[in-house]
């Protein structure tokens, strides 16, 4: 396993796309935080909204940009190997396919984790500079942990989806289309078609919708209790995490099996 991890680390760190993707994953949220932070510097902004900025707004925007960039990093971890014909040389050096798949997942997950922490640190520093050190509540602090978990799971998703399909050209668009188009449409259908209204509570279990709520800085259940809500009770952070993790596990099982069984 150590050999596979060493291989994967050298593989990851010797292609330029890695640095581009990681750079963008840190830079774009930082620019967004800087921009909104400066625009709102003289306003009374709640700690929850500041926490939302620090977590790149992934709970609010349909496309969690840093998560998608780490997903792409995961896609390329496998996609590059198939596209450029290096999977066979890799497997002649590391015939244990499970070890190679595990190494890819671990290295991308670890890189995603560190990147998420760097994003949090940079954006926290920017907010602290502009607005002073905020007094974050429990939900906001938990959203930071949720943000890290979300980004790690997206990185893993990129690897496993490409292990499953071997098609970078299919997986890359899906990473954008599923959270940005498909799930919003599915969430909206019960409102547009009365017959589908009973299905509305099920929309909470859409994986990307649930995953984004891992980084929700507000306690939506408490808000719903206080102000009342016509819709179903929001899922807890743990439940949202479980939904997204279950989706990741669901993709991982056939991906692993196929990688073991099919021809290289």
């Amino acid at each position, binding site marked *: 396993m150590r*050999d*596979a991890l*060493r*291989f994967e*680390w*050298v*593989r990851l760190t*010797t*292609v*330029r796309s890695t640095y581009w993707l990681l750079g963008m994953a840190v830079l774009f949220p930082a620019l967004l935080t800087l921009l909104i932070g400066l625009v709102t510097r003289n306003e009374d902004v709640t700690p929850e909204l500041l926490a939302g900025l620090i977590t790149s707004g992934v709970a609010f925007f349909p496309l969690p940009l840093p998560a998608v960039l780490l997903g792409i990093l995961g896609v390329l971890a496998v996609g*590059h190997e198939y596209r*450029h*014909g*290096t999977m*066979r*040389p*890799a*497997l*002649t*050096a*590391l*015939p*244990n396919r499970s070890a190679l798949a595990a190494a890819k997942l671990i290295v991308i997950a670890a890189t995603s984790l560190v990147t998420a922490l760097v994003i949090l640190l940079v954006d926290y520093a920017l907010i602290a500079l502009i607005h002073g050190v905020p007094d974050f509540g429990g939900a906001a602090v938990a959203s930071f942990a949720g943000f890290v978990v979300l980004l790690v799971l997206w990185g893993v998703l990129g690897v496993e989806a490409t292990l499953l399909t071997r098609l970078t050209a299919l997986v890359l668009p899906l990473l954008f289309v599923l959270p940005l188009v498909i799930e919003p449409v599915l969430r909206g259908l019960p409102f547009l078609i009365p017959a589908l209204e009973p299905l509305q509570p099920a929309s909470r279990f859409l994986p990307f919708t649930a995953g984004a709520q891992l980084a929700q800085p507000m306690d939506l259940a408490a808000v719903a209790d206080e102000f009342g809500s016509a819709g179903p009770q929001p899922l807890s952070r743990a439940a949202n995490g479980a939904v997204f993790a279950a989706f990741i596990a669901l993709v991982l099982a056939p991906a692993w099996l196929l990688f073991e*069984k*099919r*021809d*290289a």
Partner: protein
Amino acid sequence: MITAQNLRKVYGNKAAVDGLSFEVRPGAVTGFLGPNGAGKSTTMRLMLDLDHGGGETLFDGRRFRQIHHPLREIGSVLEAKAFHPTRSARNHLRMLAAANDIPAQRCDDVLEIVGLTQVAKGKPKSFSLGMGQRLGLAAALLGDPHTLILDEPANGLDPQGIHWLRDFLKSFAASGRTVFVSSHLLSEMALMADELVVIGRGRMIDSGPVQQFVERFSTVQVVVRSPRLAELVELLRGPGVTEQPSGDGAAILDGVTREQVGDLAAAHGIALHELSTRTASLEQAFLEATGAASEYRASAVGEGVHS
């Protein structure tokens, strides 16, 4: 020693490799021959456990996937240009070396062996096919293995490169190591290989020393030239003896030995201006052996061309 036993690979209802068994012994270059689509590349992938199929290949008694650091024992090149276009040649090798705990210094050594030191830090996207082959060979040599499995390694190499490859593989084998190499360059194989494994349509046609293969699949012809050629040929006619026309006043005879022709000419007082034998080349033997087993055959020149 490589021992392949009953290798089999089926795509749909078509057997690409059909019960192949052979041995590749150390100390010799073993050529792997077969027409296009014969199953050579599939066989090599089966040997290296890259493809799943029937049978097994043992390297000194072990399956490939059971070998702890395979690059240290078996080097392989299955495709030219199997590298990321912007990862430098040295980093490509570093990556593979890391997988088998091979020191990074060895990357520089093998780049020097294959003559790519000058482009070690360059991006290989501009590499020619030949340079790609050299990088592949460098990767195969990383772990200083005792066995090389190479699929068409001469593809894209210039004449100097082919000459270098031939000398390299021959000396590699001469040091007691094992070389299993496929090629469609028969003239090259004739100069390089000591043993052959010849397949057609996924099935074994022949295996053994090159000379044995040539002798088995070709006939020795007798070339005779004489001022009384027609009379001599008439005397030689008999069961199994055939004459091929030759435009330069000679006759090419099958089914008769040089000694028989000489004796008969002497007995009838016929002067001979030439009496020689013509042995078929590896190419002729290969065409003879695999003629019926060619998967894809073009039409003969002129055939199917209508004015």
